[in-house]
């Protein structure tokens, strides 16, 4: 059978991002030259975004199994068992390029997209997080981008009614022209009621639900896989506009439909829209699909098959319905005022056949679209080993308190309150710990169980040492979860890198995947979902690599949740995970090095000891179970003293350092050695006994006091009010700065 319309050319293939070799392969596998619609479908399915052609061989090396894993990578989102018959469903995804072009809509549709990935599986989304990277705070575009992205994330999440409870934001000039907007969603489902996308039952109707198809975002998948040039922002591809109300209707109707025993399989239309959803559903079921394009609800007149198949209009789903379910389904769509249409049926042909009227406009075997997608073993060059900068080259004479204030008011550590106050953090009424602490925590509705969640990555470490940096990102996520009292369970990740065709960039990718894999294995937090965003370059300059880690954990009883705020005077503060005599902390590539010593070289980051991480994490859980912890915080960016300052800022008490000599050293105060936590306890003896029994190093560092101050030394006292105004003031000041000033 031949499909109609004009045959495509190698030149058209190139415009769609397919190489000459890839085009030849397509012709060979088809035994003919594809027409334009068919070529469009191939180019989308074979794009980096859908096929992971550069990263696939490395992603396969990641640890993805464990007894908690119900569904690992390969589905719309990962699914893990959290006990009591419940499952957590979660994933992170990027919307980097669209957010640079139109920050509000780009970020909003990013949130909408990741929510669909989660509720497609039958899970009700219960929390959102994000990971953001912007350029230098004083870059002329930064304010516009920060403002737009933040209100876009809020605009969607607040409206649809899912709390945004956490995230991270970093500033770095390498993102000036290429910001990162990664959104993570976490949902809850009954473990035995998970919905997958594999089609089954030839003859079953294929239903389209949700918003009408317009000309928006056509070829977004290939765009997301192409390098950026400065001209691009003036090309202005048709931007997708998010409609959170439509998203809410779609979510509620889909969940109701799935609960009504009507659904064979279901798949959201995300990147590459109808193309990837129909191909994936067919491919996973080993079947085919026939679609009548005349039946697809369109928003604009005269849309051609190519446009209908590649549109990335938001808020749409594809469902294979049980044969007898039509009436039930229709009642649900009517209740929620949703457009829907029967657009085709499942077949056993193994082909995707598209028709308009009686005419076949495309007829493609499914297998080559998926299985033959190229997989490249790209050349890579390991990142040269970064040398540590010795402390004596970094340490300054600045008084401790002054250095602390300067660091807390720097873009690395300043409060992100201006951002998270624009997010509804409380809707659903199950938020236990929200932005501003370590991980966030959500109550599993109607239970005593809690779920902790976090996103983390310190890109300056990754730039210097992709392997160690990625390992550190996992370790930090692990510590953030642990510091809330929860047990880390599983991981999702978003690999944000430059152009993989460059061996140096490919080297970063390989190094990061290896480091991430090693850490997730050692910490028993398998990777169950993720996303890859490559070609994050502008005019040939790559971003600082950011393998963002999203992690979740569980706590059996939310009564044991730990927060970072100091709650009482006369309690004792310990560092868990570091012995008393260590006063030469790791300053190379630290916030201190950047802010106080003005040393911005990509020097060696602190090494991660995964065995110690696991042991120290278990120690925290043990102490917490014994009721010995009244507050805790992991030590990360900025070191022990800034962590302590954050605990003070979160509560209404002060602290007084014990006053040993090493506490005056900048290495002790600001070193970023890994594997450490601050805990506050009312029972220091019991803490010491428990730690010694497990051979966990610890040091007593401070006492909590009623005075709202940080007593660093006799004549080095910082008022909490002053510290707060600097820490809280930085971002609002940046955002209200006069342009051009």
């Amino acid at each position: 059978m031949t499909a109609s319309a004009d045959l495509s050319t190698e030149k058209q293939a190139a415009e769609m991002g397919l190489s000459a070799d890839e085009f030849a392969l397509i012709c060979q596998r088809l035994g003919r030259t594809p027409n334009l619609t068919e070529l469009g479908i191939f180019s989308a399915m074979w794009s980096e975004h859908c096929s992971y052609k550069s990263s696939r061989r490395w992603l396969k090396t990641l640890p993805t199994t464990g007894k908690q894993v119900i569904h690992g990578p390969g589905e719309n989102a990962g699914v893990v068992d959290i006990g009591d018959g419940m499952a957590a469903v979660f994933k992170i995804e990027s919307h980097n390029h669209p957010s640079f072009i139109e920050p509000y809509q780009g970020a909003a549709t990013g949130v909408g997209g990741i929510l669909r990935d989660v509720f497609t599986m039958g899970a009700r989304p219960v929390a959102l997080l994000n990971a953001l990277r912007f350029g230098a705070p004083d870059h002329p575009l930064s304010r516009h981008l920060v403002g737009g992205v933040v209100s876009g994330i809020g605009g969607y999440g607040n409206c649809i009614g899912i709390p945004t409870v956490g995230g991270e934001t970093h500033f770095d000039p390498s993102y000036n022209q290429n910001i990162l907007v990664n959104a993570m969603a976490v949902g809850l489902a009954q473990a035995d009621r998970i919905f997958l996308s594999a089609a089954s039952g030839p003859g079953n109707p294929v239903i389209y639900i949700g918003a009408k198809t317009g000309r928006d975002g056509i070829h977004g998948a290939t765009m997301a896989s192409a390098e950026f040039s400065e001209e691009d922002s003036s090309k202005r591809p048709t931007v997708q506009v998010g409609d959170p109300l439509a998203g809410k209707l779609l979510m509620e109707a889909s969940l109701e439909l799935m609960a009504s025993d009507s659904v064979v399989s279901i798949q959201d239309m995300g990147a590459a829209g109808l193309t990837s959803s129909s191909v994936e559903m067919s491919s996973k079921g080993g079947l085919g699909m026939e679609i009548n394009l005349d039946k697809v609800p369109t928003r604009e007149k005269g849309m051609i098959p190519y446009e209908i198949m590649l549109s990335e209009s938001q808020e749409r789903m594809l469902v294979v319905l049980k044969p007898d379910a039509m009436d039930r389904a229709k009642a649900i769509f009517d209740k929620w005022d949703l457009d829907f249409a029967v657009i085709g049926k499942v077949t056993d042909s193994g082909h995707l056949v598209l028709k308009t009227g009686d005419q076949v406009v495309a007829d493609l075997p499914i297998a080559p679209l998926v299985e033959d997608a190229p997989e490249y073993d790209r050349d890579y060059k390991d990142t040269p080993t970064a040398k540590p900068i010795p402390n004596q080259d970094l340490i300054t004479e600045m008084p401790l308190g002054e250095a602390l204030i300067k660091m807390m008011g720097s873009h690395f550590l300043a409060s992100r309150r201006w951002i998270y106050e624009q997010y509804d953090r409380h809707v659903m009424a199950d938020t236990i710990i929200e932005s501003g602490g370590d991980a966030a925590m959500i109550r599993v509705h109607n239970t005593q169980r809690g779920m902790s969640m976090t996103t983390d990555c310190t890109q300056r470490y990754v730039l210097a040492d992709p392997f160690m940096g990625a390992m550190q990102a996992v370790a930090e996520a692990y510590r953030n979860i642990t510091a809330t009292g929860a047990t880390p369970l599983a991981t999702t990740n978003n690999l944000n890198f430059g152009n993989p065709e460059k061996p140096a960039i490919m080297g970063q990718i390989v190094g990061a995947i290896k480091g991430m894999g090693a850490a997730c294995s050692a910490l028993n937090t398998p990777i169950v979902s993720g996303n890859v965003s490559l070609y994050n370059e502008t005019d040939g300059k790559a971003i600082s690599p950011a393998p963002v880690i999203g992690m979740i954990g569980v706590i059996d009883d939310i009564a044991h949740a730990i927060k970072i705020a100091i709650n009482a005077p006369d309690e004792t503060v310990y560092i868990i995970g570091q012995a008393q005599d260590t006063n030469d902390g790791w300053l190379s590539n630290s916030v201190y090095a950047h802010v106080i010593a003005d040393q911005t070289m990509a020097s060696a980051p602190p090494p991660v000891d995964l065995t110690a991480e696991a042991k120290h994490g278990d120690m925290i859980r043990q102490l917490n179970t014994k009721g010995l912890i009244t507050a805790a915080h992991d030590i990360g960016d900025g070191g022990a003293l800034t962590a302590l300052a954050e605990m003070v800022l979160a509560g209404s008490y002060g602290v007084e350092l014990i006053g040993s000599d090493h506490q005056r050293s900048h290495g002790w105060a600001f070193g970023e050695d890994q594997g450490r936590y601050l805990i506050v306890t009312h029972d220091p003896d019991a803490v010491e006994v428990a730690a010694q029994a497990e051979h966990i190093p610890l040091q007593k560092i401070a006492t909590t006091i009623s005075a709202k101050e940080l007593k660093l030394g006799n004549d080095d006292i910082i008022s909490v009010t002053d510290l707060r105004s600097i820490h809280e003031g930085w971002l609002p000041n940046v955002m209200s700065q006069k342009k051009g000033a």
Partner: protein
Amino acid sequence: MARIAVISFPGSNCDRDIITAIRDITGTEPNQFWHKESTMPRQDLVILPGGFSFGDYLRCGAIAARSPIMDEVLEHAWRGGYILGICNGFQILTEADLLPGTLMRNRGLRFVCRDVVLETHNSDNAILTGLNEGQKLRIPVAHNEGNYFADAATLKKIKDKGQIAFTYSGADQDPNYNPNGAIDDIAGIVSENGRVLGLMPHPERKADPIHGGLDGRLLLKSVIEAAS
């Protein structure tokens, strides 16, 4: 036992939260109504929950105020029934002319989600008799359009008649105590008969020990008791 109704619109997203809070307080399940329903049996208290009823398109609450169930809500009001509108529910009540004034975009032009301190003014209304005059409550807000506005004549009237129920309180020295620029720091008002209350803060978000405070529960209890 009070008969309590919770109305859901397509974009309501705090309906489950208020239902949970009411169930916790009263031990019974409230009655739920969908915006398309055109009959509602008699109720003692009708609650319009927070959310984004119709995506906040056109104006927050405007489309919801004209949906079928609202005829029943209006009738309930005319009969002297009690009504509580929270956040978007407050916006709907002003759009339905059950409360005077309107809620404009926040002065800062940004969505704002954080705790605020409310001061209670209840000497003149029936719905808040369970609270003390001047009582301070810490409850969070979460809105983009909470900037209460009424023209001078309306404002004078609602003041004269004691219709201001809650104001944002500056007592804790926070210069940003008013989160949205509302005129005269107004956070909530009641109808002339003192039985219809609209407020921007979300009492259902301080109604469970995990919320880090129970002031919202106090407020809800008072409303439920008044209506019983």
